[in-house]
C-alpha cells in the first residue's frame, strides 16, 4: 500500500497561500505550519513558525544558523543562505532524511517576508511577548503589516547623537513597557561650557530598553568600528535556537535568563547557563543557544561584525571560544 506523509490542508478553506521555493513547500492551517521537502515533511505550531521567521527576517539571517526548531532553519553565508531540513539534527542526518538548498539571500528573504505577510493574522504580533499579543490561530483574518514591518534601531555611532538614531520616548511611539514601569526615566545631567554645546553625548540606556516594544530583537546603541553593542529586552522564550558561527557575548543587565546550550551540529545538550544581573558569558562558536526569560529582562548582546570575521568563518579559522585561559 502506498503511504504518504502529506497532511490535508485546504488553502481554499483556510484562506492562506501556499509558498514554494526550490524543492521546499510551505502550507499553513489554522494551527500549524507544514514544511515539505523531497525526503520528508515537518509540522510546527504556526505561532512558533511566525515568531522564528520574524527574527530571521529582522536580523537579515543573522550570524550563522537560525534554527526555527530542531529540524528547520537557515544558515547565513553572507550573500547566499541555506534553507535546511534536518541538516543539523543528528537523527535526520543519520537516517539520510536531511535536505538543504542554497538560495540568494534576497530571494529567500522575499519568500519569508511574503509568508509573514500572508500568514500573520490581524491580532497576532510575532515580535511581542505572549501576554502582549492576540493569537496566531484560525483562518485568515486580516494582516498585521505594522507589527511585522518594524525595523530594529541601529545607531551608526550612538543612540541620541544628533543625526543618528533617536532615543525612545512617549512622543515617538515608545511608551514604557508594563514590566519596566519601575525603571528610572531620568536623563543624564549634562553641563557644557560656552562654546562646547552638543559636544557631550549621553542618554539613559536602561530607560531606552524599558521602552522596547519587541522581545528578542536587539538594537545597536553604540558602535566602535565593528564592535556593536546590541542590548535587547527578553521575555518568555527566544523563538529560535541561534547557532553561532563566531563567539557571541552576553551581559545580563536586569532580572534573569536561563540559556539552553546545545551542540551546533547535532543538537546534543552541552550545558545550561543561568545569568543574573552583571553576569557576563561567552557563547562558543560551535553551539546553538536558546534563552528563557521568566520576567521581561534586559540583556546586552555584544557582536563583532567585522568582515575579517566573515572571512575567518568562511576559512574555518574563526576562534571557537572567546578567550583561552
Amino acid at each position, binding site marked *: 500500500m502506498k503511504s504518504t506523509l502529506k497532511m490535508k490542508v485546504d488553502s481554499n478553506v483556510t484562506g492562506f497561500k501556499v509558498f514554494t521555493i526550490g524543492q521546499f513547500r510551505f502550507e499553513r492551517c489554522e494551527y500549524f505550519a507544514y514544511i515539505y521537502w523531497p525526503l520528508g515533511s515537518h509540522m510546527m505550531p504556526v505561532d512558533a513558525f511566525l515568531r522564528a521567521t520574524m527574527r530571521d527576517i529582522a536580523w537579515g539571517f543573522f550570524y550563522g544558523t537560525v534554527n526555527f526548531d530542531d529540524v528547520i532553519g537557515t544558515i547565513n553565508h553572507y550573500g547566499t543562505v541555506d534553507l535546511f531540513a534536518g541538516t543539523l539534527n543528528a537523527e535526520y542526518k543519520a537516517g539520510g532524511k536531511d535536505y538543504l538548498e542554497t538560495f540568494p539571500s534576497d530571494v529567500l528573504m522575499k519568500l519569508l517576508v511574503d509568508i509573514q505577510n500572508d500568514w500573520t493574522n490581524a491580532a497576532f504580533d510575532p515580535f511581542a511577548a505572549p501576554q502582549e499579543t492576540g493569537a496566531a490561530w484560525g483562518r485568515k483574518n486580516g494582516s498585521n503589516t505594522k507589527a511585522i514591518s518594524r525595523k530594529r534601531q541601529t545607531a551608526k*555611532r550612538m543612540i541620541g547623537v544628533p543625526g543618528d538614531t533617536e532615543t525612545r520616548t512617549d512622543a515617538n511611539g515608545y511608551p514604557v513597557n*508594563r514590566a*519596566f*514601569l*519601575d*525603571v*528610572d526615566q531620568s536623563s*543624564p545631567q549634562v*553641563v*557644557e*561650557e560656552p562654546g*562646547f554645546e552638543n*559636544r*557631550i553625548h*549621553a*542618554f*539613559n*540606556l*536602561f530607560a531606552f530598553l*524599558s521602552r522596547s516594544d519587541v522581545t528578542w530583537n536587539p538594537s545597536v*546603541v*553604540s558602535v*566602535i*568600528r565593528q*564592535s556593536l*553593542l546590541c542590548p535587547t529586552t527578553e521575555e518568555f522564550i527566544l523563538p529560535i535556537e541561534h547557532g553561532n558561527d563566531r563567539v557571541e*557575548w552576553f*551581559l*545580563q*543587565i*536586569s*532580572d*534573569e535568563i536561563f540559556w539552553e*546550550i546545545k551542540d551546533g551540529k547535532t543538537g*546534543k*545538550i*552541552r*550545558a545550561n*547557563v*543561568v545569568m*543574573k*544581573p*552583571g*553576569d*557576563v*558569558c*561567552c*557563547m*562558543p562558536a560551535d553551539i546553538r543557544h536558546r534563552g528563557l526569560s521568566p*520576567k521581561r529582562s534586559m540583556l546586552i548582546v*555584544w*557582536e563583532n561584525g*567585522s568582515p*575579517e570575521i566573515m572571512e575567518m568563518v568562511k576559512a574555518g579559522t574563526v576562534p*571557537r*571560544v*572567546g*578567550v*583561552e*585561559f
Partner: protein
Amino acid sequence: MSAQYTTSFSSIDSYEKGGVQIIDDDLKNFVFSNIYEVAATHKPYERIVVGKNLDYTLEAVRAEGTSPWYACAHDEFVIAMDHNVEVHFMELGDTSKIDDEQDGSFKLTAQPLGKKIGMVTLSRGHMAMLPEKTAYQFRAAKPSTLLLQTILGQESLERWTEICLK
C-alpha cells in the same frame, strides 16, 4: 488590575552570580564572570577585560574617587551600572599625544592643557560617549561600577583566571 513587576538590578554592594551547569562541555569555554564582583574586588580604575572579541573589549571598572585623565584615538562608551559617576571632559590641547594607530585608551601624565568642555553626571543605566581625541576623567563619591566598550589597549588588564568560573 494589571500585574505589578519589580525589575531586579544589582550593584557593587549587592550582587548574586548565576552560573553554568556543564553537561558535556568545558566550563572555561563560557568565560563566565560578573562585572559587579570584578568591580568589588579590584582597585579603583583598573580596567578589567570581561569580554573580548578579537581586539574589541568590554571592560569592568571600579570607579572610586578621582581617576587619572585618559584619552583615546577612537570613541569609547561608558555605562554607569549602579551608582552616580561624573565624567569630566577637556580638550587635549596637545594632540601630538594621540597615535591614530594605537587602540585603547591611555593615561595622560598631567591635566590636559586644553579648555574645559563640560561634564556629565551618570546615574544607573546612563550611557555616555567618550569621544575620540578628547580627554576625560571619572569622579565617583563612592565605589561604583562602570562598563566600558572599547578596544584592547595599554590600560586593559586581562585577568581571566582570576575573574572567571573554572
